């Protein structure tokens, strides 16, 4: 059992041991406020049994004891040593009775509860050097003198570092038991917040608009809140005031602390913190609550080493359903499809036979629009061949063929000559270039006078999965080059979830998915309301929820999994640029048409003021406010004159 707070708590009751009080201890004090019913679990983790209902009482008594000791410290060494040697000390793990026994030794009646100005006085009190504390500490806790202290366990100095995490801000305005114990915490915390705000600002919290910089503004609020609370406190009636902005900051810090604990393999601390996250998340609203919930689940999976049992048949179909809802509720996939289609359309200008290879067939939602655009282009439509790649479905339904059939029906309606072929593959690396060649039988014409087929390769959110296995991406890119495509369109998440330590990945993912969930909330509410009005059922709401589940599954892959299990290995556009260039491709600039069409598409999304389309070196990115979230890029095989890439994998 960790007992680093034994020192501060047991030593002279509520002695804060100002210099040495750990932030984790603060966290425990914080947790104290939130638990209701039963024994407080955070203190229990330390070995103290305190009933939650007694909390306010215990806090008050600690305060009284401390005041009594400090006020008498100057003249009363005798008193303190009396406390040390002559008093019968009961088991300090039962804090409540232990304090009773200490207080009963005091001759003076408990001092009256101080009034509002206390916070300032308190801070003066803390100027007291730890010397008295040290002096008190030793005699009181001398096991030899106390008869009933059996489980005192002095912490080793090294252990303190475990809780030396980024300080969890006290959020004093947040939950206030209308009495001073918190006031004294507040003063201490204010001090600590000042010194630690610089370090905390380096940790990127969620982009929920509650920036870490908001801590600065939290402090004056804290002062007010604490003084108001202290002023309001007259009796023992606890007053609970929840300030959710403070809670947001705390939530982020608790998440970071938990991730750090996991990184350091301190699973006990991580476990405690994960539960705290859930409690904190419940007090939040909207996007932050959901993101925190998913990240808490992901962390829990990592801590308890839960490996998701991937049931492939259910999984693929379920993923498709989730992705459909994601498609309907927010513009990311539509943006991806429209910009990729525009690039492909431009590449196919003037060609009479075209072939599209789609690595991300799913439900084929990208292709009706391309077919329509090809049908309407001046000069008439070309003959279109589509090859779709999909994962295996073990339940005897051939989803790929069904999609192909639907597309063929549509093509027939709009009079586009269409052929379809579907390939089932566990991984894209299993594909070979020869699979994509046209049938030798052809279209009934003589083989000789057929026009050469122009090929386009399309991949939406698929290539990053290949990074889980070394060498897979290189093989696939080699296959793509062998097919000699006119254009390769690629859409990927714009985030770095693949490099660095666990903590860096966690931080990056927290930022990314917070922004994603924000955009769902912001863009989704209007659409949801509209959809509800239009359709009657709560379909808009369902779309939103399913989209969140879709993103939640990604979170539960990025955070807990490692090795080949972790398939969501997102990389930034810059990183992909490097990979593609090394594999022998050169970038193709997406034209202004794509930009305009994307901008207009975004303008259609109600609540879509937050979405931003940006052009970056010929690639288009879609983001929420200032954060780009997905990026579309187009490539072609580098000119033959350029140096061919080395065959070795450049990972």
């Amino acid at each position, binding site marked *: 059992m960790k007992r680093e707070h034994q020192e501060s708590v047991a030593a002279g009751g509520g002695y804060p041991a100002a210099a040495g009080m750990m932030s984790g201890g603060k966290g425990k004090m914080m947790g104290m406020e939130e638990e209701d019913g039963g024994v407080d679990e955070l203190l229990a983790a330390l070995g103290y049994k305190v009933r939650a209902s007694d909390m306010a009482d215990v806090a008050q008594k600690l305060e009284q004891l401390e005041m009594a000791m400090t006020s008498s410290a100057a003249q009363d060494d005798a008193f303190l040593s009396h406390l040390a040697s002559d008093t019968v000390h009961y088991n300090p793990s039962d804090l409540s009775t232990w304090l009773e026994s200490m207080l009963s030794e005091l001759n003076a009646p408990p001092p009256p509860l101080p009034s509002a100005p206390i916070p300032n006085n308190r801070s003066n009190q803390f100027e007291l050097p730890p010397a008295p504390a040290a002096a008190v500490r030793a005699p009181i806790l001398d096991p030899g003198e106390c008869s009933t202290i059996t489980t005192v366990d002095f912490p080793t100095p090294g252990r303190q570092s475990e809780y030396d995490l980024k300080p969890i801000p006290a959020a004093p305005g947040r939950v206030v038991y209308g009495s001073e114990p918190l006031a004294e915490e507040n003063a201490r915390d204010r001090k600590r917040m000042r010194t630690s705000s610089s370090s905390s600002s380096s940790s990127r919290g969620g982009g929920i608009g509650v920036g870490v910089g908001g801590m600065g503004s939290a402090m004056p609020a804290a002062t007010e809140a604490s003084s108001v609370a202290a002023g309001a406190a007259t009796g023992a009636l606890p007053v609970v005031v929840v300030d959710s902005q403070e809670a947001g900051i705390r939530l982020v810090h608790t998440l970071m602390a938990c991730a750090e604990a996991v990184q350091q393999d301190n699973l006990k601390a991580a476990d405690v913190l994960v539960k705290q996250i859930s409690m904190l998340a419940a007090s939040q609203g909207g996007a932050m609550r959901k993101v925190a919930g998913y990240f808490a689940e992901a962390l829990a999976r990592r801590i308890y080493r839960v490996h998701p049992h991937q049931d492939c048949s259910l999984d693929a179909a379920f993923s498709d359903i989730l992705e459909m809802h994601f498609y309907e509720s927010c513009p990311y996939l539509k943006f991806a499809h429209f910009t990729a289609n525009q690039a492909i359309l431009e590449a196919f200008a003037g060609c009479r036979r075209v072939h599209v290879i789609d690595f991300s067939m799913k439900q084929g939602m990208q292709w*009706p*629009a391309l077919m329509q655009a090809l049908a309407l282009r001046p000069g008439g439509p070309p003959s279109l061949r589509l090859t779709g790649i999909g994962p295996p479905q073990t339940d005897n339904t051939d989803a790929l063929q069904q999609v192909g059939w639907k597309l063929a029906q549509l093509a027939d309606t709009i009079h586009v000559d269409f052929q379809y072929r579907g390939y089932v593959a566990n991984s894209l690396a299993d594909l070979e270039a020869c699979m994509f060649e046209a049938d030798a039988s052809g279209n009934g014409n003589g083989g000789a006078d057929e026009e050469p087929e122009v090929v386009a390769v399309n991949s939406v959110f698929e290539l990053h999965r290949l990074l889980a296995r070394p060498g897979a991406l290189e093989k696939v890119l080699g296959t793509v080059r062998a097919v000699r495509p006119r254009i390769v369109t690629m859409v990927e998440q714009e985030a770095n979830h693949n490099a660095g330590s666990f903590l860096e990945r966690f931080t990056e993912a927290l930022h990314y998915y917070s922004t994603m969930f924000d955009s769902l909330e912001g863009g989704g509410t209007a659409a949801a309301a509209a959809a509800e009005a239009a359709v009657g059922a709560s379909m808009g709401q369902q779309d939103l929820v399913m989209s969140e589940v879709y993103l939640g599954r990604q979170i539960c892959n990025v955070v807990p999994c490692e090795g080949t299990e972790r398939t969501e290995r997102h990389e930034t556009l810059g990183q992909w640029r490097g990979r593609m260039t090394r594999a022998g491709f050169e970038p193709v600039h997406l034209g202004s048409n794509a930009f305009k069409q994307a901008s207009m598409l975004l303008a*259609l999304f109600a609540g879509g003021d937050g979405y931003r389309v940006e052009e970056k070196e010929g690639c288009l990115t879609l983001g929420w406010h200032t954060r780009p979230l997905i990026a579309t890029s187009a490539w072609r095989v580098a000119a033959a004159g350029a140096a061919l890439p080395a065959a070795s994998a450049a990972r």
Partner: protein
Amino acid sequence: MGDMILPLEEEEDMKRRNTFSINDNVDLLVEILGRLDGRSLGVAACVCRLWSSVCRRDSVWEALCNRHVAGGGGGPGTRSVVAALGGYRRLYRLCVGPVLDRLAGGPGRAGWAPTREEAAHLSLSLSLSLFSIDCYERLGGPRQRPASLLFLCKPVNVS
């Protein structure tokens, strides 16, 4: 017809013969109705059976969709494709109308302010793309819930 005093029915009969009724001249009616905007066409369709049948003609809606597009929207090839996908009236109702309404609400996005023609052309091509996706969804069968256009739905409209 020297008689100055006519029986009531004959007087009315003469009145009828001398008045002009738009409903007698359907071509003229088509010309006029073809210049209305979408909402007014909807209203006009409620006037009488003749007007309703005129307002259902796809050519009227085609003219409406192509109104601001330079070159008139692409000719017979386009017409057959749109007809196959469901017709101009449906295109307007599902896509062009909502798109134009949405875009009228706000000015151009930062960094790009389209000309009127550009906007018209783009909204038509965007609408066609969305229309084709919707048509594709409906191919899934009557059970299928086509929802890709839900984002265009307006919140409850009480006007």
